[in-house]
């Protein structure tokens, strides 16, 4: 019997929801994939000296190794992808992997876990809710609106667009292609009203996850009049959309505004190490 991509996508969707159930996540909210890996007893380690996206190793303690040289949002999606390999009990020897790659054929396992990662991080209900709560219309959303929603899921702009078009089929393919033509620097410039080379993460008043991940040097856009008693992030300026902060050093910063609270978790830029330590503050004796 031939397995089609539709069958694989269905399998990925079903398993992603089962994994959410197994670890007490609902289908309406974003999740932190590193927290999920921790619950699933899968070790996650970032490395900065191996040029690759990620690897899953079916050791006695299952492990995921991710390149910290990829963007923060890319790392989260790759982690979910590698977790998919764990969930579906994939694993081959290095010789087998090389043989498969040389044959250059469609790899159903890779398709399956890519779809799994999309459904796991961005379930249909959560996506609908993310747009509806902000009064964004999915079919007509601007790049800045898509960027804001992507940030609420901790995924990249094009990753969300790809999922909307090919995973959930909420937008047309040509609409996705049009959106992808607007590049990230232009979107950041439109949001901040000035160009920046820094990565920008956003948590608005509808941010459903209690945390927001950033790296030192990133800009963090939070609701207007947002305040923190931490010096891990420092205010840069107020704009119409809210207050812009810059992440200055690793650690956890609690931020509040009227009817809003979030923990901004800052890690070193391109942090290499175990995921569980990425937000540890430096000690006084460093």
């Amino acid at each position, binding site marked *: 019997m031939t397995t089609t991509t539709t069958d694989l996508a269905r399998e990925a969707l079903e398993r992603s929801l089962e994994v959410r159930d197994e670890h007490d996540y609902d289908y309406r909210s974003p999740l932190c994939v590193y927290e999920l890996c921790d619950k699933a007893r899968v070790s996650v380690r970032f490395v900065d000296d191996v040029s*690759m996206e990620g690897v899953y*190793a*079916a050791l*006695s303690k299952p492990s995921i190794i991710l390149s910290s040289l990829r963007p923060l949002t890319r790392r989260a999606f790759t982690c979910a992808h590698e977790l998919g390999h764990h969930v579906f009990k994939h694993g081959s020897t290095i010789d087998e992997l090389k043989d498969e790659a040389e044959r250059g054929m469609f790899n159903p396992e890779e398709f399956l876990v890519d779809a799994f990662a999309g459904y796991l991080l961005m379930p249909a209900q959560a996506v609908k809710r993310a747009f509806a709560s902000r009064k964004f219309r999915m079919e007509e959303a601007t790049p800045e609106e898509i960027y804001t929603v992507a940030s609420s899921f901790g995924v990249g702009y094009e990753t969300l667009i790809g999922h909307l078009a090919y995973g959930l089929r909420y937008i047309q393919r040509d609409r996705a292609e049009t959106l992808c033509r607007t590049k990230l620097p232009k979107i950041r410039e439109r949001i901040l009203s000035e160009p920046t080379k820094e990565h920008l993460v956003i948590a608005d008043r509808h941010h459903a996850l209690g945390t927001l991940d950033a790296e030192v040097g990133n800009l963090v856009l939070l609701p207007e009049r947002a305040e923190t008693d931490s010096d891990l992030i420092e205010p840069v300026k107020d704009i119409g959309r809210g207050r812009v902060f810059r992440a200055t050093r690793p650690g956890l910063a609690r931020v509040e505004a009227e009817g809003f609270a979030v923990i901004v978790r800052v890690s070193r830029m391109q942090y*290499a190490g175990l995921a569980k*330590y990425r937000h540890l503050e430096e000690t006084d004796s460093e």
Partner: protein
Amino acid sequence: MSAQESKREIIASRVREARRMAGLSQGQVAKMLGLQRPSVTEMESGNRSVSAEELAKLADIFDVSVAWLLGEGVRQLDPHDDRLQLAARELQKLKPDDLNRLLTILASMRDQGQQP
């Protein structure tokens, strides 16, 4: 150099390497162990012995095997070892140095082998 000194040097270098791979500073490790930072510095320079209890704690903190910290077992896994089961879409694109580095990292992890 005596066998004991040699062993201490191996442990010192493995502790240093494992700490870096875990993304921790000496100060952070000291805090986790309930020690002062100079104690960790001394461990990593081979000037202080590491007790069995500390080794077990360090292995847990760094997510590596105690055997690897002791310098036992291979430094790098054999790429042709059938027990090593991976999923990696870009493996054939990895440069030899990158693959070697990956195999070294995997060797440090606890209880290498197949999933039960």
